């Protein structure tokens, strides 16, 4: 009966879509909406949340299901759907391939996150239906997934507009640089992981070559570092004019017109990214010398500016005479911070009593409505990738390369002691350690630490340590009852004692596959070792 044929009038049918460039763009826009901002990461030794992180302290169990897995495959579905149906659109090859490039970029991004956590994962390259046999496929070997990521990113780099060619009103869409930067990131991860985990199935040198080539190519794209390290993470650093930005999750528009907001400033205030002393120890002193090695043991050469922790006279001592990035990343006692002057404390906020400053905006905090964009890939990382990959590949790095990369970052931060081969030799330092230190410091609290510890195979060393906080000075910690604090012999706060933390190197370098994925695949998907 004809009158039974009633059709939706306010929903669009898939059959009527996929015709024009607008359709392709609207479909691709879904990927930007799905893009997760990844604000809070407490898995490393750099920042604690209000409660212990079970990944970080080794107490987690294999979950039944996990957003780390599911959300990535949701993103992959979106990309595959575009790639499968976008061919129908009546547009030029260049237009189609630009949006296909976006789709392949986001597919690669999703797979890179999956591989980092799980290793082998089912490689799904088309949309599946409830009857598809591929639903029950086993995990695809890591190298195959990585090759697919490279291929997707090569395609994306070929067809996406360059940064210069991207119209200002399209700021936020991925460019050739974004694809290459991601490729460099993935390749560095794969190369160093294979090297330090002695994974013979993967040619680490090749990956590092890929990383170097991709990073070098990004460096031809006209990117420059933003002029102010602290402002980079605030409203002043937003937008197309900031050529350091390669991938951002856009929030907007303003405190009074919140189309998409976040809570980062409140989260910082509430101690959801409470920096640890373990992190702060890595910063160089103003003379360019360290006090601590990368494994959080005292370094052989110790800066004369270093004050032993037992002797710190004040809460602020550890923040004094350091790399200027310290001042941009942490509040000092007495600084006007979240709600008036910062008074060291652990209640109702930071468990370490350190107060994160990077990205904190008082206007956002007051209005409870933050719209500053979240930076996901920035040019500084590309420079760090190049330096690290070169050194890892060759066992050495030229002063020229150091000047193109790390010393650029120091210059921008206003830190005028440069890293050179001579400096390292003179002070009996370790170049690799200094490169890694630079990365740790520059990218502090931006969600890199856990991944770095995993690929450097240092998680087993650093995660089971005491997570340390600030120095307890009774006169400064107004309102805190000393008896409620757990402190070490130096009167330094132990926010999480080593006794509650563990890392099993035979198990914890990979995430457990969600149990449902194993059972529902009929056992074709297998669990990672020792989970």
């Amino acid at each position, binding site marked *: 009966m004809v009158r*039974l044929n009633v059709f939706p009038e306010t929903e669009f049918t898939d059959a009527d879509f996929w015709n024009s460039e607008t359709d392709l763009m*609207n479909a691709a*826009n*879904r990927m930007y909406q799905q893009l997760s901002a990844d604000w809070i990461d407490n898995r490393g030794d750099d920042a604690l949340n209000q409660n212990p992180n079970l990944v970080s302290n080794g107490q987690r169990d294999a979950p039944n*299901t996990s957003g780390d897995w599911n959300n990535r495959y949701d993103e992959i579905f979106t990309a595959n759907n575009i790639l499968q149906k976008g061919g129908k659109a009546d547009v030029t090859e260049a237009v189609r391939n630009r949006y296909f490039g976006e789709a392949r970029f986001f597919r690669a991004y999703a797979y890179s996150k999956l591989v980092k956590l799980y290793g082998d994962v*089912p490689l799904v390259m088309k949309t599946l239906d*409830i009857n598809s046999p591929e639903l029950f496929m086993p995990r695809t070997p890591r190298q195959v997934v990585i090759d697919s990521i490279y291929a997707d990113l090569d395609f994306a780099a070929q067809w996406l507009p360059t940064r210069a060619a991207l119209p200002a009103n399209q700021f936020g869409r991925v460019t050739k640089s974004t694809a290459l930067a991601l490729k460099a990131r993935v390749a560095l991860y794969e190369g160093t992981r294979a090297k330090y985990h002695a994974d013979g199935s993967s040619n680490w040198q090749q990956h590092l070559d890929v990383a170097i080539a991709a990073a070098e190519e990004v460096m031809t794209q006209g990117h420059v570092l933003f002029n102010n390290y602290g402002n980079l993470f605030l409203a002043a650093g937003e937008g197309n004019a900031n050529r350091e930005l390669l991938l951002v999750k856009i929030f907007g528009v303003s405190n009074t017109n919140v*189309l998409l907001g976040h809570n980062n400033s409140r989260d910082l205030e509430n101690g959801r990214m409470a920096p640890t002393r373990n992190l702060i120890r890595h910063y160089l002193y103003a003379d360019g010398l360290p006090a601590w090695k990368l494994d959080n043991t005292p370094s052989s050469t110790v800066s004369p500016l270093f004050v032993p922790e037992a002797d710190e006279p004040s809460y602020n001592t550890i923040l004094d005479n350091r790399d200027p990035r310290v001042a941009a990343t942490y509040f000092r006692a007495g600084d006007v911070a979240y709600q008036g002057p910062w008074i060291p404390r652990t209640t109702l906020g930071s468990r370490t009593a350190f107060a994160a400053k990077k990205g904190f905006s008082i206007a956002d905090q007051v209005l409870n409505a933050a719209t500053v964009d979240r930076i996901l890939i920035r040019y500084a990382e590309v420079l760090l990738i190049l330096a690290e990959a070169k050194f890892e590949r060759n066992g050495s790095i030229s002063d020229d390369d150091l000047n193109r990369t790390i010393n650029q970052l120091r210059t921008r931060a206003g830190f005028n002691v440069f890293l050179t081969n001579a400096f390292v030799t003179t002070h009996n330092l370790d170049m690799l350690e200094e490169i890694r230190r630079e990365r740790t410091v520059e990218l502090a609290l931006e969600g890199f630490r856990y991944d770095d510890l995993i690929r450097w195979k240092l998680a087993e060393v650093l995660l089971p340590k005491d997570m340390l906080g600030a120095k307890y000075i009774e006169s400064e910690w107004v309102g805190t009852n000393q008896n409620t604090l757990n402190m070490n012999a130096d009167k330094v706060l132990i926010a999480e004692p080593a006794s509650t933390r563990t890392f099993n190197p035979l198990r914890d370098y990979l995430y457990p596959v969600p149990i449902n994925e194993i059972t529902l695949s009929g056992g074709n998907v297998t669990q990672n070792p020792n989970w």
Partner: protein
Amino acid sequence: MKIKIARPGPMLPCWKPVLVSTLLILLIQLISHPVLAQSKLVTGTVTNSAGSPMGGVNVSVKGSTVGTTTNDAGRFQLNADLGAVLVFSYAGFHEREETVDARTSIEVKLEENLQSLENVVVVGYGTQKKVNMSGAVAQLSGKELENRPAANLTGALQGMLPGVTVYRGSGQPGAEGYGFRIRGFSSSNAASPLVLVDGVEQDLNLLDPNDIASISVLKDASASAIYGARAASGVVLVTTKQGSGGQTRVNLSSYYGINITARQPQRLNSWDEQTLIDEARFNATGSREFNDEQREWLANPNFSYRPNPTADRWEYFGNNNWVKEGMDKINHQNSQSISVSGGDKKTNYLISGGYYRRDGVLRYGPDDNTRYNLKLNLNSEINKYLSLKVTAAYIGSFTRENSYGTEQIINRLYRSRTRQNLYTPEEDVTGQKFNGDLQINPVDIQQNAGMETRDYETFTGTLNLKVKNLVKGLTLDIVAWRNQNAYNMENNSRSLFWYGRSINTVRFQINAPNTMRLIKNKGYQNNGQAFLTYQLDKGDHSFKVMQGAQFEEYRKDELQASAQSMINNRFFSMNFADPLTKTSTDLVQTWAMASFFGRLNYSFRNRYIFEASYRYDGSSRLAPERRWDVFPSFSAAWRFSEENFMQNLDFINEAKIRASWGELGNGSAIGLYDYIPLLVSGISTSNNLVFNDVRTQYIYQSRLASPLKTWETIRQTNIGLDLTMLRNRLTFTADYYVKYNVDMLAFLNLPNIIGVDLPPVNVGKLKSWGWELDARWRDRIGKLEYRVGFNISDNQNKLLKYEGVNSIGSGGVINLLEGYPMNSVWGYKTGGYFSSAEDANRYRQTVQYPFFANYTAGDMRYLDLNGDGVINAGDGTPENSGDLVYLGTTNARYTYGFDLGLSWKNFDFTAFFQGVFDRSFLINEGTLSPLLGTADMPWTIHMDRWTPENPNAFFPRMYQTSAHNFRPSDKWVQNGNYLRLKKYPDWI
């Protein structure tokens, strides 16, 4: 009457607190008649059909309190006006009315009420004599509903009919969420009974109970399969009162009631509250919030605040009972209705109008619901062949609520610190009256946060043309109806700010910037149907055949809009809002259904009864190739009381056994366009995408289409027994049924690599079974008539197949679990609280709580049932549930009702009770656990908490921000049985 108030929001979930009873019932029933003439003495005799005089018959003048009874010779006498109507009544006999006229003596013959023989029951597309029914149908007359002190018809049904369970979601006026289930669950998905009011699909909650003539509940497949894909959960046929011709009658009824909030959780005074807060903090963190001096200030009535200049705030040490300040103990409700009926032999009419209003629990309104009902029923015999029935009805329901939401406000009234004063101190310079320094002020919100109105209006018109007598026994019914409705929601949320000591410090704010939201829709449903009925009686054989067709279509158009930042905080109009913040969405919903249906009834000597019916339904909701399906049913009955061998059993008047089988469909769980792959417009969702500082479109498919989807099919088998015994004084009905939903829509459990939401598909299987029993006794002792009724029903269900969903998670109420009833409860077994730290330490030697390492005195002792040394959920399945055990289901297994009635002369006494038993009820941790969040407050009940001095407490020791003592367990599974007096005696 019981009222649960709104469940107060997410912070106090599942708190089903309060019961409210109606205490005062004022009921005036006035029946008047037109012109009064002079009074005269009326005498007469009452006899039965055999001509014997009847003593003890009530004789009353209608609409007055004048009355008498007949003597043993059947004679009576009384004074009445000329034109007055005398009512003769006697238990077990039909009532008769006689008008006082010129006759000097009125002779009345009362007919015995052979209920079981003559009762006519409304069934789908027709009526049937109860005696000839082979299906399970329960019927209630309007008279039985009358005077029940519930202004809501669904609520009034509770306990009246075996197998019908009434539930409700909240006590909020206009949002009570009344619903009912017939014979328990038919599906784990949406499945509500089909309600037809004079054949028109309508919401039972909006009807005026005074308009009801009868309600038929079609319970088994035989009775309801004629409604095919709409009948899975049973069908309710409501018939409204019709005019009866003759004199013009005016009927007025007025009702006023109050609802009293009772057994409501009470707040603590501020020093007790602080004591518990400090205990909880100390236990959790080792330090207290307040010192002894501060706690003393709380108890000091002369010291309730002090300034804190460094923080630019006040510190409060008051004692403010928020619940008392913000909620009314007594809430009013009233209803009035009037009907006028009259006409002549050919044409009659009934016009009725109703008004109903109910106030909510908040102290400062608006917080109420008002409803208007208007109805016209017109019947006309046009000629020998044609009769016409016209119905026109209007219902308007108008709800007003605070823009912040009643639930949220109640939540706040239970969360705001008692030490926070209601008002700012006298020396406050911010100019604000209400204090919101510590937490937002819910009383201020009640008074100043703006209003939400929800107006729903519906118009119904029905035209019913009956053609008869063209051929003997043949009738043709042609029916057309249209229901048109309009909905209008406006929410004006005003900004409120609360300051510290100066306006430089904004402590809290809500609705900033101020916001306006609108929803407007209009919808209609058209129905055209025609059916032929042919009846043939030939000797011992009696046939009745019905065949019909129907087409139905529905459409709703909706527009939603919102905007922010009006030019001020008082005037709300889209025209004055910030254009950048305006949003709007539209929504069109459509469906259409076509059906063919038929029924055959056959009976032999009124003794062997057979019925078959079918419905062939086609729906726009299904893919064209899956669109049509047939729903058959068969039933048979044997009236063995008619057999010769029964003729000596005098005490049995009527006896019948029945059996039926049939298939029903459930279409309500199917979306409107599920078979078509559809795209979502991102800009119409609340998940915004921003590019270039503007909200940007994105389009995606959120869910796969399901082209193979079909109706859920429920197969139901029923056997029943009807008995009338002991001179028709005892009637008894019993039924047993089993129903299987064999194509239940369920979500496939597939690997998440599919990356998109799945549609439900027909893969589930639910079994639901039970029995029902209804018995009533009616007799008299001298002039005292009495009646006793009892009904009980049992229902159980089991989810036979749900595509392997077997997760019990970490316990609690599990809605869907294969192999178990719906809403099963899983929890730990407990062994009281640890009496001392040593006791706990000893236990810890062998048993660890992964969710709370350092349990100690006053904490819950969870039993390690599987002996693995860890209290956990195993792998979260029923097969390996760790230490969790099955603790029953929240579905009530038995529901029952009983009523008692006494009549003596003109006095009438009725009491009605309703109850359930065999039901578990899990109080959830958020409800029980004080200070689960530091902003959650303890109540008076929590004073009975474990302390060394109070080791036998009901509650464990106070502990903030951890619910380790409130894990689902046998301790917190409460018996959900109850028995309620639903109607108090009222004297007329």
